[in-house]
């Protein structure tokens, strides 16, 4: 790090708070039954309610409320048994009704914290609140014109607001990663930043170390990857502390992160803030959570992802680094657990699952790629030494695509190892005939020369020859 920057970092401290918007994974919009899914044809999932047609009224999705409460419970928030919606009024082309239905006065969750781990150790980042709101439409700027895709209008969101409790970009990144892990594991959201199901606004101010007062903050809107959040923060800390160092006052601004230049740029001043003319939403009665409803949600809560990962290590001998990956969602942890339970060859199963299946699930979403039974059969073939590891990998995909019995597939595809002496004899004969020099070397006492001959056997048999049997047969033949 150049010494100027280093000196700035030593003298100035950042105060960072994040506002994270997360799309709730209900599959439906929050106030109507339109489908909510990434990648649908623009404006194909719309109705009078999400288009804000005159007279169309919102009907609150119970499932969205349940997911918001789940998020709150997972993050240790206080759940308000009575909360309500407010209208936030402003004009923008992406806002069909001219107002957004959100929660201002009484959010559904308050307090709570996100546990993080950085190079400095473990910390807990406290939360201010989580509230429910509807998403706006998506503006697509193309050439000189702007198109509006209303598919996103009315998608259920929660906004998770942290205390300004983070001090470094590393902490902010760790916070985002921890939040993503918990929420996606709980099935609250996909948390895909590239698809916009998790979006992050960053609030940051800088002050001289030791100064008890907060500096003037800037907001960096809609930063769309964890790495960009880190880079935007580094940039902004540098910019603000350099300004302070030069005796220039920071202006409260809304800024954006330019991914091409790696710099933050001013969008608008924050002074003269918009007056949102909030008032209680009259079309929706307050959300009142009964004991019975709360019990049902609490019962449906899975263990926290860290506990689930620890259980995989403990019960199935899974490697810790794999356990974290296998607990990225409840569904995945369950799928893996069913696979691992179906076979005594757990290490083999784990490596095939992580090596071959995970990637497909990332691509195709949560659907069972291969049945636990089939994976168990392949694990047994490999574990018992009947096939080689390369064949096992190929077999995973062949079985998944054809749905056929892996053992029969392995036979048909000639994957089973050749350990029968009669069947191996032709390969041995051919290899010896082709390796006269190596055979002579061996007989002269160069024991390692046998490896070359065995290599020929393996190559000629397409890797299927059982190396132990073939090696023994070669030794016998060379002795005579």
């Amino acid at each position, binding site marked *: 790090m150049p010494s100027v920057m280093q000196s700035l970092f030593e003298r100035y401290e950042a105060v960072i708070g994040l506002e994270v918007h997360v799309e709730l994974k209900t599959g439906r919009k929050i106030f109507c039954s339109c489908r909510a899914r990434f990648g649908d044809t623009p404006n194909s999932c719309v109705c009078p309610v999400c288009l804000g047609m*005159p*007279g*169309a009224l919102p009907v609150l999705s119970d499932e969205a409320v349940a997911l918001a409460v789940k998020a709150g419970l997972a993050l240790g928030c206080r759940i308000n048994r009575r909360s309500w919606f407010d209208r936030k009024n402003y004009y923008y*082309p992406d806002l069909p009704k001219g107002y957004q239905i959100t929660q201002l006065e009484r959010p559904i969750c308050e307090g709570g914290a996100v546990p993080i781990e950085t190079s400095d150790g473990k910390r807990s980042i406290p939360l201010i609140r989580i509230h429910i709101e509807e998403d706006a439409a998506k503006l697509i700027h193309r050439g000189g014109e702007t198109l509006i895709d209303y598919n996103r209008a009315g998608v259920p969101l929660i906004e998770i607001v942290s205390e300004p409790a983070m001090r470094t970009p590393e902490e902010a990144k760790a916070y985002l990663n921890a939040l993503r892990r918990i929420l996606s594991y709980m099935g609250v959201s996909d948390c895909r930043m590239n698809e916009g199901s998790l979006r992050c606004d960053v609030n940051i101010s800088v002050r001289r170390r030791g100064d008890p007062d907060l500096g003037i903050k800037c907001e960096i809107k809609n930063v769309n990857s964890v790495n960009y959040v880190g880079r935007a923060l580094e940039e902004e800390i540098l910019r603000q502390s350099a300004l302070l160092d030069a005796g220039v006052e920071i202006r409260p601004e809304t800024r954006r992160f330019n991914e091409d230049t790696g710099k933050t740029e001013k969008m608008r001043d924050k002074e003269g803030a918009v007056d949102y*003319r909030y008032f*209680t939403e*009259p*079309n929706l*009665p307050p959300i009142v959570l009964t004991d019975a409803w709360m019990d049902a949600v609490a019962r449906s809560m899975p263990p926290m992802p860290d506990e689930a990962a620890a259980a995989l290590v403990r019960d199935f001998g899974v490697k810790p680094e794999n356990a974290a990956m296998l607990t990225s969602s409840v569904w995945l942890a369950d799928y893996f657990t069913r696979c691992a339970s179906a076979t005594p060859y757990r290490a083999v199963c784990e490596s095939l699952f992580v090596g071959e299946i995970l990637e497909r699930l990332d691509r195709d979403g949560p659907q069972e790629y291969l049945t636990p039974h089939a994976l168990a059969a392949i694990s047994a073939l490999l574990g018992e030494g009947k096939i080689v590891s390369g064949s096992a990998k190929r077999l995973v995909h062949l079985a998944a695509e054809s749905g056929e019995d892996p053992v029969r597939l392995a036979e048909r595809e000639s994957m089973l190892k050749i350990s029968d002496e009669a069947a191996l004899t032709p390969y041995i004969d051919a290899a010896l005939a082709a390796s006269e020099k190596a055979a002579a070397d061996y007989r002269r006492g160069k024991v390692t020369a046998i490896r070359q001959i065995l290599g020929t056997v393996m190559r000629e048999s397409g890797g299927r020859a059982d190396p132990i049997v073939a090696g023994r047969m070669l030794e016998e033949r060379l002795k005579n």
Partner: protein
Amino acid sequence: MKDITELTAAQLSACLHRRELSASDAASAYLGRMTLREREINAYITPTARRALEAAAEADRRLAGEDAPALCGIPYAAKDNLAVAGVRMTCASEMLADFVPDYTAAAVERADRAGGVLLGKTNMDEFAMGSSTERSIAGATRNPLDVTCSAGGSSGGSAAAVAAHEAVWAIGSDTGGSTRQPASFCGLVSLKATYGLVSRRGMTELASSLDCVCPITRTVTDCALAMNLLAGQDTGDMTSFSSDEDYTIGLDAGVSGMRIGVVQPEVLAECEPAVKRAMDRAVRLLEALGARIETVELPLEMALEIYMVVAAAEASSNLARFDGLRYGSAKEGATASDQMRAARSAGFGDEVKRRILTGAYALSSTYGGGYYRKIKAAQATVCRETDAVLGPLDAVLLPTASGAAFRLGSYADNPTALYRSDCFTTIANLTGLPALQLPGGGDGHLPVGISFMGKKRSEKTLFRAAYALESELSAFLGREVGRDAVGYAKPF
């Protein structure tokens, strides 16, 4: 034989169910009547003749069977702020001049499902803001009882259609008196039910927490029949609640033993003499029928003032969606804001702009600074006080408007003076309580209205009191109320 259009809903229903008349006969008679009267009255913005004839033919098929609902085949009209799929809905505004919804309001859905025959969409003040049905892209509606006078508003088209026998009954919307006042000006009956009893889905919102979808009818009995059809929970309106009442049962149980409050005499000081006489007459008749009368005090003045703020505030938000992007004619502008400003400046009339500005000001944290919070607290006080007054009573009697219909154009130069004419009606919207308007007599050719207001969900009590009074007054008013036919109408 009488002209078909003279029959009340109850009478026509009996004729249709006895197959003395067909729904198609009735629809044709009304469409004919519309042709005769519309040039003068201007009750409709968009007639739906073809749709009406098709609905009538379908109603006739149902009436040939056993279980046709009471209002099957009965022609009705709907205010032009209620969506009907495939039919233009203008809300009397330039902003929606070409807007055709592809969804139907719950109230119209219910009427259609019961075999109702929609004759058309009726005139109103722009976005239901007004009390005279003069501020409309379709021009003013004239009062059928005196065409130089206003039919009231904002549901003036609905009231005029019923009074001119251009519809048997009509659906309107009442946010601060917008069905009761026109019903009073046109000598008709209208019930603003408890907030939530009738679904608002598909009604263009004015002030969501105050809006009610309401029937306007010729008689109390017809009003009860209409409420049977309109009332009930709708999963599409989370503020609606369930009801399985039959409002036609027990109408004639009388008022003997009822405790009825009469609004404080001071408020009558500003009313026309005819209103005072109607109130006195009603009190005498109720007493004669065995009701106990006592004077009460309602916070009418405070309710009116709070109403103006709440209604304007919610309207300013509800009308924000009309930004020229999807409604109104798109305007040129350098930025999206410029385009919206241009579209809204061109698309809205003066009264709408006046209320949007007032409402935005009241909600503004910069200008209002906690003002709206105080208004909502004051509203809660009005509710408490009114509940306390109604506690020991069955109903309160009060005027509907301070006078009979005024001449068209009376308020052209002084638009805000018209706000005061809502001083007896807004309290029911602000408190969510039911209020039923019925004709109370009048001077000469123009009637004045009186209202019963009651506790939450006391619609049946109000119907009973109004029915008893209507019987006594009918001779005086010289109008028939179709009592002969009640027995024939099947409950819905």
